[in-house]
């Protein structure tokens, strides 16, 4: 396979990766909103969608590894040394169209990471609050938490 053709396929991969990151970002925002609205059903739904989104990630990784492997073989360099920056530099004009895609992917990935961290902090806080409430509600007459001793509620009892 020729280098230009491989680079074009890499551009297609980048566009797909950018779309996937945007969807991930949107799902994280939905999840955050559902938590703020105290809507467990919406949170669960957002989690299911995120799960589906994450399940497509393997295909992205495989495709990316295959393209980078082809370029590394062509250029005679180890694949793990190639980055998008070095590919653009090695490809010259044939790889120029990859630069804006790389920038956009970098930008959206940074947004996802920040949103993810903030959501992580929010979820951590909520878990502690909920734990406190449940401990309070279910503590026995001596003040000992029952939740630590077993299941919370026997719904059939």
């Amino acid at each position, binding site marked *: 396979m020729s280098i230009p053709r491989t680079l074009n396929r890499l551009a297609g991969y980048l566009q797909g*990766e950018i779309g996937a*990151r945007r969807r*991930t970002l949107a799902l*994280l925002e939905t*999840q*955050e909103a559902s*938590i*703020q*609205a*105290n809507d*467990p*059903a919406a*949170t*669960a739904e957002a*989690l299911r969608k*995120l*799960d589906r989104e*994450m399940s497509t*990630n393997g295909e992205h990784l495989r495709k*990316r590894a295959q393209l*980078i492997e082809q370029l590394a073989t062509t250029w005679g360099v180890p694949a793990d040394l*190639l*980055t*998008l*920056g070095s590919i653009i530099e090695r490809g010259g004009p044939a790889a120029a169209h990859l630069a804006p895609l*790389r920038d956009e*992917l*970098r930008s959206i*990935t*940074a947004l*996802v*990471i920040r949103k*993810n*961290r*903030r*959501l*992580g*902090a*929010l*979820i*951590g*806080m*909520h*878990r502690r*609050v*909920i*734990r406190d*409430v*449940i401990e*309070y*509600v279910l503590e026995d007459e001596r003040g000992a938490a029952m939740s630590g001793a077993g299941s*919370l*509620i026997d*719904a059939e009892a």
Partner: protein
Amino acid sequence: MASIGLNTGLKALLASQSALDIIGHNVANANTPGYSRQSLGVSAGRTLNLRGLAIGTGVNADVVKRTVDGLLQARLTGQASSLASLDAQLDVMTSIEALLGEPGGFGLSGGLDRFFGSIAEFSSSPNDLVMRTGMVQSAGSLAAQFNQLAGGLSSLRSDTATQVSFNVDQVNLIARDLVQLNREISEIEASGVPANDLRDQRDVALQELAKHVDITYTEGSNGNTRVTVGGRLLVGETRAFALSSDIDQAGGVTLNIEGSQIPVRVVRGAVAGLGKLTQGFIPGLQDQLDDYARNLILEMNRAHSTGIPLDGGFTRLVAEHALSDQDQDGSVQDELLAGAGLPFDVSSGALYVNVNNAGTDTLNTYRIDIDETTTTVGGFMDQLSEIPGLNAALNGAGQLQIISDAGVKFDFGRRLDATPDDSGTFGGQFASLGSGAEGPFSLANGDTFDFTGPLGSFSVSVATADFTEISQATAAELVDVLNADANFQANGMRAVDVSGRIVVQSTTSGPTATFDVDGGSGIAALGWTAGTTVTGHTTAVDVALGGTYTGEANDLFTFVPLSDGTIGTTPGLEVGVFDQNGLLISTLSVGENYLPGSELDVGNGVTITFGFGELSASDGDVFAVDMLADSDTTDILVALGMNGLFTGTDASSMSVRADLEADPSLLAASSGGASGGNSVLLQMLDLQSSNVDGLSGRSFTEFYNDFVGDVGFEVASTANSRDVEGFLMTNLEQRRDQISGVNIDEELVKMIEFEQNFQAASRYIQVVNDLHNDLLRIL
């Protein structure tokens, strides 16, 4: 940008934490009465214009809201009033039902059955002292049951009235709490923060208040609630107005509120329910029970007062009830007997008094007529004292006492005069001429009756002044005129009134006794003819009555021969028996086939025997005898409380006569005086099933069954109403719970869902983080 992002996240965290805090508060108050579920009101943060971009600032937690439906709350409050009213009534009514103890034999019906059973047993052996004592004891037990029931109802009424006071106290306590809650709510809400929990407490207090009295309430703009009861202000802006209750002797409840002279009227709530019981239901039962006891006392005493004790009569009787000086003139004797304060009515009629003189071995019956519109206490006492051997007087307490002379006993029994022809006007030894017909007789002023007696001829004339109406002269009036005539007396003659007929007799007897009716203008009116000679007989016809009169009403039987002849000899000789209306009720054959002295049936339980002798229809032979079904048609004995079985006038005062309890031989089994007689007992037994005027024509059994049935119906009806109202209340409470209540399971499930979601989300946070870090590595 970074600071806006951090702030947005923080606000979101705080909002979520508030929401979860509220969930915790809801869960903690899930079982708090009246608690309304709370929720967080959130809104989007104000948008900021930053570098030409409208950037949101996250979420704001604005207010903690109480989830309530005001209309539903008002309906709950009203329903609480209705339900509390019925609950209060049902509680007391159930106690009344238990007090009656029916069915089960422990109630009054069992006592009545035992009482009538003891009478039935005693009636089969009227001389048995054990049976006699048993009847007195069962009467005492019955009276005690009446006392107990009356006392129980009275206590319940009193307790119910006390409950009204207690409820009113509660109203005042709650009203003061409401004032305090109003103050706290308005203070808190003045700063813009809703006082949710205090409002819940106030709703609970209002509902609690409504259980006692029906209320209306309105909330002002400052959050204060004004409460009115029966249109009067109970809880105002700054103070409560005290409610008070007055309970009168009759159990009537009057509610007043501070600052108003007009009584407050409540129609629902426990106070109204209890008020209905103290003013309507319980007094109604007490009245019915008293009526029942009063009529039982009246009817039993009617029977017993005319009965005769085991030893044959009384030597002294003292009335239970005192006569009183109604016009306050210092004298009781001028009072009308029917209006002298006696507890039972006295009506017009006759009282028969029997006097048995052991010294003369005579038994005489005297009739005392009472007119409820004219007979005075003094007049009645005079009539009693005029009876030979009796003296009537009032004791210091105003009670009438009748005392007999030594050797004399008296009673008021329905004795049958065994020897009714005391005057010898029916085939007697005296020369005797009867009028042949009953009066009145049409006489005129100056009419004469010409006789020839042993001393010669004489004439008796009558004058208008001697009669109430001379053209309607009665036998009694003419008897008085004749007996007052000096010639009539001097010639050994006398006149007697035999049930409205006049009979003129010689005072000597035998064939030598004779007088003539010579003429005169008055004799035609008596059916006599001039030239009639009447002669006495050697043998008097001996007449003897027996049996017990069983007719339903008092009567006067008049016996007259239907022809002239000799008893047991003359063929076809008959004696006609006529009732007081002149109707022939029986014809007795006393001619050739009659064996003198043998018993003939007159009818209505009465028998008669005739001895040998001559009867003359032509000479107007006649005798009459009272047949008494009731020897006191006036009820004067019951009214005075003389010789009754029971004393008292109502359920609470009813008891067996003390001297009867001490000496059961005073119990009167018979009214005829015969040994082994049980006519009084049979009359009492009849009362068990016969209709009683005072009980609206129902028998004692029917009345009591209706009484118990009515109570049962009222209880069942109230219980049904309570069930319906309770169902409505439950329905409203369920609707309230759906709207305002906390479902702890739901709240916990919601939290656990959060927990599970967050747990899953935490995993994805890591996945997303790893993925993107990897991505950054190749960028």
